[in-house]
């Protein structure tokens, strides 16, 4: 695929995404209420931890990991911030202000801002930075040592960008019997999270998590647009496969096969929407 084709497809993709985002937003405005989301069992652990934080005066620990504003994890950092905002607001009755940690210096203002807006009371000093970047052992180890030294969090909510160093955080949490929810947009971190965390979100579920903890409909725009795009991508993959298959099977009549297959696919899609 040459550069120009790639560019043209990219432009079309971005325009389509913009369209879907605006459509989702418009629909949201019209419906005026939340959509119905499938269950995410991991998030159902949150109330227990919040209660624990409130009743035992132990802070919640929200970690961005290496998700940096300005880098490729910007989107993940924003999703995490939105998620943490609601969690922190939910733990408001606790006497112990949540701790927000990050390994990315540019995310620090976001973390502090999060605390300022979601927490009534001065909690600025509860936002902590450790050096630096993704896969930072300094972050994981330093944070573990510092947290265990003083505040024993009720639970760790690790949502953002983590590498395998996540194992250190999760192991320490496990040792101390603190709850943990983990999700990472890095695959190694995700694998570690899956094995070791008490509650796991997988990959892009991070981007939908705000929709689950927020009452506001607009938190679900991403999830709705994502769903639409995903459907289109799967359809496209199926068509691409069909196209290639038809060309391999019947080089002369491939167009007929593709059209027939596409019609069937469309029918199946319509039927599955109905039923």
């Amino acid at each position, binding site marked *: 695929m040459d550069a120009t084709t790639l560019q043209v497809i990219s432009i079309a993709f971005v325009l389509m995404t913009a369209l879907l985002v605006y459509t989702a937003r418009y629909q949201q405005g019209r419906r005026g209420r939340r959509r119905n989301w499938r269950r995410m069992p991991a998030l159902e652990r949150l109330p227990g931890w919040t209660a624990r934080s409130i009743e035992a005066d132990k802070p919640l620990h929200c970690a961005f990991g290496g998700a940096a504003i300005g880098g490729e994890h910007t989107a993940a950092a924003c999703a995490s911030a939105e998620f943490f905002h609601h969690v922190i607001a939910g733990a408001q009755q606790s006497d112990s202000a949540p701790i927000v940690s990050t390994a990315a210096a540019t995310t620090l203002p976001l973390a502090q801002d999060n605390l300022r807006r979601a927490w009534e009371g001065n909690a600025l000093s509860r936002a902590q930075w450790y050096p630096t970047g993704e896969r930072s052992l300094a972050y994981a180890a330093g944070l573990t040592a510092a947290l265990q030294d003083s505040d024993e969090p009720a639970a760790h909510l690790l949502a953002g960008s983590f590498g395998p160093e996540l194992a250190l955080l999760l192991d320490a949490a496990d040792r101390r019997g603190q709850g943990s929810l983990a999700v990472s947009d890095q695959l190694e971190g995700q694998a570690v999270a899956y094995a070791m965390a008490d509650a796991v979100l*997988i990959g892009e579920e991070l981007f939908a998590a705000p929709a689950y903890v927020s009452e506001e409909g607009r938190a679900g725009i991403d999830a709705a647009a994502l769903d639409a795009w995903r459907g289109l991508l799967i359809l496209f993959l199926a068509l*691409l496969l069909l196209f290639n298959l038809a060309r391999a099977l019947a080089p002369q009549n491939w167009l007929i096969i593709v059209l027939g297959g596409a019609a069937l696919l469309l029918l199946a899609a319509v039927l599955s929407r109905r039923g």
Partner: protein
Amino acid sequence: MAEATITLAGFVLTLMVFSYLLGDLPYIGNLYRIAVYIFVGMAAAFTAIVSYEGLLLPYLQDIQDPTTSWTALGSGADIVIFSAAALIGALLLLKPIGALSWLTNSVFAVLIVVGAAVAAVGALSGTLIPLMSATGTLPAAFLSDFTATVDALLIVLGTCTGLYYFHYQARAGDDGAPAPSRLSSGLRYIGKAFLVTALGAIYASTLLSSLTILTERIGFLFSIGG
């Protein structure tokens, strides 16, 4: 001499870190924490040094001596860009206290928006499009080689169901609770199988990586000890 000191320091610090394995014993537990704190302090210092020398120093020199240009844009542009960056950096300090929010929000927006756009365009041209076209392409030996055919179809199936696994919207049942259809549950079930298999393999390779590092460390300890 210097060589020996470096080696000895490495030996002692390695043992301090490994004391983690003994758990939170009194005093010994602190050895681990001391090592970690030393490490964090040093990492912060080196980060500061590298950021300053590589990124800030050239601009500072440029401002001092306008005859040499340190970037392709020329000295004047450099000074403007550096001043703008310094201003944004200063405004970031105001962000947490909520002062001048219209201004701090705006400069923060620049950071976020540029990062998000770069990430989006990169993910598109580097991951989404190449991976999609690679998934939809059939192998050359398609049809003539039965196993290759099955494999190719399995990959498409796994990718599609794996993607479908994440689908968030669910139809509401009679009672308002999400009630996914049987088809949807089944597809997600298959998708999850692929995802979990992949995560297991990734976990294993991560483990192998860290095991390699462990053997290197142990080898290091023995090379001094023995």
